[in-house]
């Protein structure tokens, strides 16, 4: 109990960030048309690729002769980058198609 209380006391700022972010995430998403569910999921998927920063730190702090950590870190950086780059590119490809449809629609209304 005491450890928990002191933990809360020591990490109050982080806890604020966590709780406010939870509400923010819910607030930002709650009114999204079903058309955008897939791109949104994909975009959010790319954002959690920020985990790559953790893998960069792991690898950057590893001693040059600690091959186990280096190998694990190397793999972690690779898969983290795949998550980030692949996620953003796939999302962009999905949204690209929406854009052409939209542009066409707006062009048509202008013609009328």
């Amino acid at each position, binding site marked *: 109990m005491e450890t928990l209380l002191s933990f809360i006391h020591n990490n109050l700022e982080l806890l604020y960030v966590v709780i406010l972010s939870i509400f923010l995430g819910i607030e930002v*998403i709650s009114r999204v048309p079903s058309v955008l569910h897939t791109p949104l999921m994909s*975009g959010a998927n790319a954002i959690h690729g920020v985990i790559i920063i*953790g893998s960069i730190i792991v690898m950057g702090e590893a001693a040059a002769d600690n091959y186990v950590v280096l190998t694990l870190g190397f793999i972690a950086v*690779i898969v983290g980058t795949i998550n980030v780059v692949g996620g953003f590119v*796939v999302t962009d490809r999905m949204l690209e198609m929406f854009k052409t449809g939209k542009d066409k629609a707006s062009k048509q209304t202008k013609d009328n």
Partner: protein
Amino acid sequence: MQASILAICYLIGSVSFIIGLKMLSHPATARRGNLVSTAGMGVAILGTLFLYQPGGTALHNIPWIVGAMIIGSIIGAVSARKVKMTAMPEMVSMFNGMGGLCAALISVVELGRIAQDHSDMHVLTILAGMVIGSVSFTGSMIAYGKLRGKIKDHAFRGQHLVNLLVLALIIVAGAIIICGDGSVPAVIFFSMLGLSVVYGILFVLPIGGADMPVVISLLNSFTGIATACAGFLYNNQVMLTGGILVGSAGAILTILMCKAMNRSLMNVLIGSFGNTGAASAHSTGEQGAYKEISLSDAAMVMGYAHKVMIVPGYGLAVAQAQHVCHDLGKLLQKNGVEVKYAIHPVAGRMPGHMNVLLAEADVSYDDLLELEPANEQFGSTDVVLILGANDVVNPAAQDDPSSPIYGMPILEVGKAKLVIVNKRSMRPGYAGIENGLFFKPNTSMVFGDAKTVLQELVNLVKEL
């Protein structure tokens, strides 16, 4: 100085994630939103590479890190560019699994290092990151395999009990490590890792293939939480905010998707259980009589109709027939037929899948009808052309309480004067449920690949 610049980089990253997500939820700004969060991510990553100095020393092994990033970028960009529109859902699942794997690897490494400074809370965060990351990784891989059609649905008796048992063992192992004297016994740690990996597999395996989008969204949320755990560990704000944001947004998105199918999350996760047996028993039962319509007759009725409604489904996506589908629509419109597309929110393999496909073929936004307006218009429709859609038009969702999809809102195509169904064969759809619509008196079947059939129809309508 460097540390403050890095802090600003992280602030920019966090804010750009929030703005990006916000913009992603509106059709007009979505693409720019994605670019905004990409830019923020770039700033955060570059900042970490060059400015991160824990205890005054810069990061080592930069060439190796950059090398790994280049390899990862190439793999990610090439696979994302090459993937077909139809395979995007499994691609997202694959990328999500990579993020989960990354989180799990970080935790494994960090737990080896905690001897120096460790509080129980740190260990707990590391363990949570490892468990959630591993579950997300193997779960995503199973979801990927299922969407590819390589892994079938497996459910055995008592699977829920086994799952609960594995989960309980994971918690017990975690408790032993945390309550221990500070040393981390390797045996317990690695069995915890192994159990998490197994749990991810067991968790997704029994869930029906049709529910994979919901599962991917849920696993996406999991990876977000694992990321937040790592952010907590490193006291890194951008990882923390990014992770929590995705965690909560993913959770809400999961619930929204379930709502689109009129089901609860519990129902998706557990409800698949036992359905497999019932559904297959059902399908052998009522193979009634269906009638076929020739392509020339189909072209005739559509060419002389007042109003045609096209219902696209996964079959259209598989056949890559969206362009020829639009050709047929344009041709009919030129002949004075009113053509609309009725889009079910969960048609295809992911919510919005059909919108993406038809947008690719340049179908106008105004011609796409969502579920409710479409259902209002079926009554005044002469011909409904169903292209490879099955479960989303299955009347069992409305009148068979024993059906696994009972309660899901469907496109009420039966209200139209004539329904033409294009399918490759009489096999039941993805959810494995028999569809009574095919045996209704006003339904006619056209068998064959959607693209070939549509091409034929275009030629025949031209000759009218």
